[in-house]
């Protein structure tokens, strides 16, 4: 039936393939039941089709609601590819340990530089160490609950913004346009991940959704 197909096309717009298939299945099932009941009640086939379709309501309104609770294609893509940056690191144990070693080494070097009177260089090394800290922590900390994930994300953003403020010092606000344009892809990723977290039950969260 063309009208139902149009309704489904509108209602599944921008949804992921799996979500769209789910919507199509449940709405088709619902439509068939409504149609069957109308025919039993004495309606003709055309009347039954029409009343079942009218009962479904506005497809665009349904689409807006579906996009709030089911994964969209962009979210499904992020869920699939979101851990891509961690793969090269996790698949090479030496690289993982190297990243982990960078933070304490950088701390020692920074302390050495500061005590030897080269405060500016020491501050830069310290900033780098703080910046790399969330990367090392993400690989090694046992973050397996939503609450710990939340704590980690707050620490990550505080460390990132803090490191940038240390680098730019009093000129941070002057360079804010550059910082915002550099950080917006990260913020966007964070926003999409937050939306995915609301839509998926915790039991089916992959590791990168906690971070």
């Amino acid at each position, binding site marked *: 039936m063309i009208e139902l197909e149009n309704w489904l096309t509108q209602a599944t717009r921008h949804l992921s393939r799996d979500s769209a298939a789910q919507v199509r299945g*449940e*709405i088709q099932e619902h439509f068939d039941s409504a149609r069957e009941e109308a025919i039993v009640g004495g309606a003709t086939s055309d009347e039954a089709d029409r009343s079942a379709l009218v009962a479904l309501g506005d497809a665009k*309104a*349904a689409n807006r*609601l*579906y996009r709030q*609770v089911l994964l969209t294609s962009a979210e499904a893509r992020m869920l699939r590819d979101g851990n891509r940056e961690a793969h090269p690191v996790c698949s090479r144990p030496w690289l993982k340990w190297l990243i982990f070693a960078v933070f304490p080494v950088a701390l020692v070097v920074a302390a050495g530089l500061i005590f030897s009177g080269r405060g500016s260089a020491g501050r830069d090394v310290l900033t780098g160490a703080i910046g790399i800290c969330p990367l090392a922590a993400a690989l090694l900390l046992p973050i397996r609950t939503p609450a710990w994930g939340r704590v980690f994300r707050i620490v990550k953003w505080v460390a990132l913004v803090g490191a940038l403020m240390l680098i730019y010092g009093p000129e941070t606000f002057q360079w804010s346009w550059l910082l915002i344009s550099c950080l917006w892809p990260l913020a966007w990723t964070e926003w999409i991940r937050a939306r995915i977290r609301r839509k998926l*039950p915790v039991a089916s969260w992959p590791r990168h959704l906690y971070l």
Partner: protein
Amino acid sequence: MNFKGTLPTLILEALHHEPSHGYRIAQSIKERSQGVLDFKEGTLYPALHKLENEGMVESYDGSEKTRPRRYYRITKSGRKMLTRDRAEWRAHSQAVTAILGEA
């Protein structure tokens, strides 16, 4: 009638006694309200998915008259939420009745 925001509670109430599928849930709400709560059925499933994401209902595959169906049943958390919503609704409706007076 506009009953925005109460659909999740009505769904939980419809599932309170036995598991059911989407179409039957919609009909049950309409019949029990004697047609007053006549909502668009396309909005029922997003509400069901939201409840499922929140752990208030769970779904499973079943069949009715040999036709495969997606059934939903209320969970323990769903029952708690329903009890809380009922109490809130009772307090709210008593307060409105106190202001507007009995019909």
